[in-house]
């Protein structure tokens, strides 16, 4: 009778010990799966790639939120709605959207005034979504359907021939 109990207890203890060791090993050795978390944060971001958050695009910002605990209220195009959604997803406290030095983007697209364009390729290289077509010393143009309205092409233009117009 006593031996039966002993056998049962030792088997259970043995299983628990082995499982515990395995889990402990896995926790130390295998990397945490932060990729899927980054992807789901990235899904919530508006993908304007405008870099107003201080990171060079939406995915790098998503990465920073997960990996270096960056604040979730740095995305003006996403608006307060995105901040709230991020807070829900990550279980963090919702913050008020930080809006210093940034403007909201309301569905506008960049347009190149083509007779002024000198073909310097600066705007083309600045575009985060490759929505500007043009070659050196050739007129450039913007693919309106692909433009996210991030305004990153405006500053590099040496002749100020890019302006934002309403997309509608």
């Amino acid at each position, binding site marked *: 009778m006593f031996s039966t109990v002993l056998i049962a207890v030792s088997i259970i203890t043995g299983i628990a010990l082995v499982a515990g060791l395995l889990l402990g090993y896995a926790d130390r050795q295998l990397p945490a799966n932060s990729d899927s978390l980054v992807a789901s944060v*990235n899904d919530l971001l*508006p*993908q*304007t*790639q405008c870099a107003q958050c201080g990171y060079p*695009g*939406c*995915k790098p910002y998503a990465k920073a939120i997960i990996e270096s605990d960056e604040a979730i209220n740095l995305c003006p195009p996403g608006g307060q709605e995105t901040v709230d959604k991020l807070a829900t997803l990550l279980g963090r406290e919702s913050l008020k959207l930080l809006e210093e030095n940034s403007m909201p983007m309301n569905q506008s697209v960049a347009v190149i005034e083509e007779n002024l364009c000198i073909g310097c390729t600066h705007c083309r290289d600045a575009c*985060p*979504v*490759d*929505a500007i077509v043009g070659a050196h010393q050739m007129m450039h143009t913007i693919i309106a359907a*692909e433009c*996210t309205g991030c305004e990153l092409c405006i500053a590099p233009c040496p002749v100020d021939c890019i302006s934002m117009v309403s997309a509608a």
Partner: protein
Amino acid sequence: MSAPTFDLGKLHGGLRLEGRKAASTALEVQVLPVPSQLILPLTQHVGDQANPIVGIGEKVLKGQMIAKTDGSLSAPLHAPSSGQVVAIERWPVSRRYGEPAPCIVIECDGEDNAVDLSASIVDYKPLSPDELLAQILRGGIVGLGGAVFPTAQKLMQAITAPLEYLILNGVECEPYISCDDMLMREHADDVLQGALILMHALQVDKCYVAIESDKPEALSKMSEALSVIDDARLVLKLVPTIYPSGGEDQLVQLVTNREVPSGGLPTDVACVVQNVGTSAAIYRWINHGKPLISRITTISGDGIAQPMNVSAPFGTTIADIVKFAGGYTDRADQLIIGGQMTGKSVTTDDVPLVKATNSILVLSELHAPGEELPCIRCGECAAVCPIQLQPQQLFWYACADNEKQLREHGLIDCIECGCCDLVCPSHIPLTADFRTAKGRIRELADEKARAERARARFESRNERLEMEKQNRDDELQSQKQAVKKTGPQAIQDILDRTNKDKED
């Protein structure tokens, strides 16, 4: 002659509405004289606008094509009378969701001279379906039940699927409207001849002509015409007088007992539905060369002096038609283009009659909706919904802007028939809310697709930049290697050469 049959599928919900059609069916269809000016929108159909092929100042003849299609989803437009084009400009029109649309304005000369119609008459029997459809396209014919989908394109899409039945829709279930009723009473033969042409185009050998049971006169005229044609492929079907039995999917269900799947078309269950008016228009175009330039429209309601059906050329203003029907009465309060349930309330009668205008209603304030109160979740709306949706639940989610739940509860399948509005004891304008919510869902989907594309482009750009950097580094590395390998030898060579020069 085949007797009308009743073996029908069943429609969920729906309403037995008071028909109120007697007033407008008392008189025969009255032909409206051609007005002095015709305003013809280029967007009288679903799809892209037609392209004008006449210039300002040009003289046109009745039946002449004045705007064409260029291969996209669209329908051409013909001059309803002879005269001179005086303007091509934007004009307020009674489109369902719209602002002023570009219109061709014709100043009529009153002579009504027509082009040679016999030139466009074709014998359809030896034609292949494709040739016949191309000919139908040139007639400017669109679905006259109110949806104004270009008929030729609807048929072209349909013939890519296996088909069994053509269903002619003579149901006309909305209150007041009686233009199809009058058409069947007065031109039953045109409708049935059109059905034969459609059957040839679709290569089907069964056609059900569905007529609502509250139209005994139309039914008897159609039976008579059918016995003359004596074609066993055509069968009359009586459907019960329940709104909205004339909805395309609802009619398919009633007549064939097959349910059109969510998000699908009648062609998914081997059916094609055409309005009786469309069928008659096809017959007149194919057999008589008359393009679609006029239609029968019902003018009725308790705000109009003499309700009636008129046959009027497109481009006639609603004001002219109202005047022809004796003008407004003292009780006139609101003007609706289309039916009472699905029509659009407009604020001016200075809009033209278009291909979609099956009815003009002038109603008194008795018909104005009551004050909106909170939803008490009585479920009346769910009981009448012909699609078996849960409007009370959808309303909840529409208020909360809950896109996911709206999708899951099938908002996209709502046909906007207005049954739920009518039975709601709290007078909630459910259909209007659903229409807004549908627009919002479409917007969100567009936004999502855009973001997804931007994300993909951003990532592929980063990959490209990474690759370019890698290539540059590799190149630099290999050049360094080359210099390292050949460098000392090259220096030695130069030194040797200079030493040799010195010696010389």
